[in-house]
């Protein structure tokens, strides 16, 4: 964590200091961390020169292992070794158990149906498991780069819904790491290829990872990456190839009952066979049974391809649909980029090449390309490249709607709308004196609530008691650049702000996060109060620093009285921030925010006018 610094107004702290930030690819199978060093984005290896960390966590009674060490325990102790946790993120236990093959874990559902792994260390949820994967990557980065990180960019599948994104962000925040941005994996890959500097036109990014499939269509124009449409399947990936092969081997070996350990062994062997078949026409699969016997079976490339053909076809159908959403045709695509380890499968490459009618780009290691792109974006966002032209305009992958009468859905934001986006919707009371109203927010494309993913339920309270139909409540749904939803509401005639309690359907509530945070602190022998104080102090210094820079540039937008008031509020904040009263610092920041709201608005108007100055004069 950055040390608290106070800068005098008009003078920012260490302006040319290189800030440390990394990009993290939190993958289903493997995870990587990358950073820009001496102008080049590279993945960072660990002490034994391994770049990728297997996304595996092992819980034993007195320790937690990750990566290869955990993977080594996978066959011996499958119940306490969690693999592919990304597939559990933001999903209900029922949802997971309906789709997956036999899972070797001891799973229970939380109060709101989320999966909980019962391990040798007690109950852990997918967010906590993901945090364990992030932990060694962050310490690796801090050790290699020689300092504390100021922020990270974490990549997510473009097709991840709100709950899955929020879970990913929560995992990083559990570790006290600032998330600069959740970046979509396909967009990260496009950045890594430097396509922005080379060309203008429409590109397609086909991303088949271990557990997820994404297809994104982007328009490039002088540094701006505009996502036109995105599609895919957040539960389709190379893991499914492995599972199909596993079932095939089970049949071939004539095994009816599988122990958890043998099942895991079979799965690992399936993955090996799949990888072998990339460059070979046949491969011998071999497993050791519980009685010590070893059994073998030959698998041909053709057999493997017939097993996975329908899944690959499914990805191509997604490509067709997404092209249409983007309002372009395959002929418009000037470049296709392949991302994700599963694009090494020859059948996948062939099918993609046939569909888009051009040889896909594969020059950057498909396993590393996402982390590299994330590192480039992190370097820019943290402020190391103020002159950069790069700008990413992402879209929301799935429509957002609210439940209406009879289990139907009214769409509020349709899929592939560029984010950030805000939509206001008006509702009215139907009873005299009604003071509360309940909402159910869902995400998905289908018309019935039951066919969509439930995101959250929230209740508006504090509606002024009026006659039925007299209170008009304006509810604003806002989706930020990370694709995360927030909701605000106001009664129109009285301008009363109503309060909202959001209960995420498949995410963690604020209280659950606070509890997890406290637990993690206990382990780290840290102190939550100290951390909260430090966070407020850092925020205070950020506010003062950016405001000082703004004043140095645009003080002429203020009259002398306004300027004096702001300076007084700054001094007050600086004074308060030197103390140790967290609440007082928070209040002082709020006071300064209120004092400078109008100034911030004027500056924004100014920069909007300046932005269009270069355009041909077509003023009204």
């Amino acid at each position: 964590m950055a040390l608290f610094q106070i800068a005098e107004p008009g003078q920012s702290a260490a302006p040319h200091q290189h800030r440390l930030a990394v990009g993290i690819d939190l993958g289903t199978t493997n995870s990587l961390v990358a950073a820009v060093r001496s102008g080049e984005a590279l993945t960072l290896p660990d002490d034994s020169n391994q770049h990728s960390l297997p996304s595996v966590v092992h819980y034993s009674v007195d320790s937690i292992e990750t990566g290869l060490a955990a993977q080594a325990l996978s066959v011996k102790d499958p119940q306490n070794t969690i693999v592919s946790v990304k597939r559990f993120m933001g999903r209900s236990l029922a949802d997971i158990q309906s789709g997956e093959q036999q899972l070797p874990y001891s799973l229970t559902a939380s109060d709101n149906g989320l999966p909980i792994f019962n391990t040798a260390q007690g109950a852990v949820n997918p967010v906590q498991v993901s945090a364990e994967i992030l932990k060694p990557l962050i310490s690796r980065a801090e050790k290699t780069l020689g300092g504390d990180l100021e922020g990270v960019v974490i990549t997510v599948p473009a097709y991840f819904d709100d709950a899955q994104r929020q879970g990913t962000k929560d995992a990083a925040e559990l570790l006290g790491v600032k998330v600069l941005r959740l970046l979509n994996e396909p967009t990260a890959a496009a950045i890594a290829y430097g396509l922005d500097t080379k060309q203008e036109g429409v590109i397609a990014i086909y991303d088949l990872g271990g557990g997820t499939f994404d297809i994104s269509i982007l328009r490039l124009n002088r540094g701006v990456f505009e996502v036109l449409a995105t599609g895919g399947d957040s539960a389709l990936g190379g893991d499914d190839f492995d599972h199909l092969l596993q079932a095939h081997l089970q049949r071939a070996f004539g095994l009816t009952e599988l122990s958890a350990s043998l099942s895991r062994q079979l799965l690992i062997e399936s993955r090996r066979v799949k990888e072998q078949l990339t460059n070979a026409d046949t491969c011998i699969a071999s497993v050791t049974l519980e009685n010590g016997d070893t059994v073998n079976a030959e698998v041909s490339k053709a057999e493997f391809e017939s097993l996975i053909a329908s899944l690959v076809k499914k990805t191509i159908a997604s490509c067709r649909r997404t092209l249409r959403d983007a309002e372009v045709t395959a002929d418009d695509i000037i470049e296709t980029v392949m991302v994700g380890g599963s694009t090494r499968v020859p059948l996948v490459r062939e099918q993609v090449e046939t569909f888009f009618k051009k040889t896909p780009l594969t020059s950057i290691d498909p396993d590393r390309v996402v982390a590299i792109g994330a590192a480039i974006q992190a370097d820019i966002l943290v402020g190391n490249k103020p002159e950069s032209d790069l700008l990413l305009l992402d879209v929301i992958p799935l429509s957002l709607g609210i439940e209406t009468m009879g289990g139907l859905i009214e769409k509020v934001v349709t899929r592939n709308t560029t984010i950030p986006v805000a939509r206001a919707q008006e509702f009215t009371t139907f009873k005299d004196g009604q003071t509360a109203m309940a909402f159910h927010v869902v995400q998905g494309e289908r018309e019935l609530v039951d066919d969509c993913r439930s995101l959250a339920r929230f209740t508006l309270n504090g509606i002024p008691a009026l006659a039925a139909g007299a209170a008009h409540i304006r509810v604003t749904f806002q989706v930020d650049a990370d694709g995360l939803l927030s909701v605000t509401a106001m009664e129109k005639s009285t301008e009363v702000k109503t309060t909202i309690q959001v209960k995420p359907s498949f995410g963690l509530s604020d209280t659950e996060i606070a509890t997890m945070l406290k637990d993690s602190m206990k382990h780290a022998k840290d102190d939550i109060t100290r951390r909260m104080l430090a966070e407020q102090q850092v925020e205070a210094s950020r506010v003062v620093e950016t405001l000082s820079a703004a004043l140095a540039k645009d003080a002429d937008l203020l009259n002398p009285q306004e300027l004096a008031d702001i300076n007084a509020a700054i001094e007050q904040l600086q004074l308060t921030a030197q103390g140790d009263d967290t609440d007082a610092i928070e209040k002082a920041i709020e006071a300064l925010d209120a004092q400078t709201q109008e100034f911030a608005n004027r500056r924004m108007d100014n920069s909007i006018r300046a932005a269009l100055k270069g355009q041909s004069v077509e003023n009204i």
Partner: protein
Amino acid sequence: MNYFELFQITPSFDIDTANLAERYRELQRAVHPDKFANESEQQKLLSVQRTAQVNDGYQTLKNPLRRAEHMLSLRGIDISHETTTVKDTAFLMQQMEWRESLEDIKDSQQADELIDDLYQSFAGFEKTLSQLLATLLATESDENNLSAADQIRKLKFMAKLQDELARVEDSLLD
């Protein structure tokens, strides 16, 4: 909010969409949250709100139907939540015929050709409607405004048909 003002473009149904896209990118460079990643929470929130406005403005001006609706709403005629419907009998007959053709697609041997034909007929009809709309919006009068609103309603019917067709096309892929 007047989106023509935000983009500093003269209000008109015929706009240069390439120029609009260019202005959109320039505005995004000025307001996008990524430009404020290191600034205060207040700045970030303000930037999210402004960017949402710019995005909505771009989508409104880019889409001919929404652009026309926006022009009418700036003239005080809001038809976005109305219940008035089209009374033109010939138009409604044509709609029914097209809906029947949509029904026929799934049982047809030449589904792809039928789909292509329908897309072409829709596009042709929409072009005629849009041209009429452009003329009506160019000269502001009460009569022209009301007549323009009628054309917009028809274009909405066409947009729904397009969606239906896309859905039918999708169902053939599954």
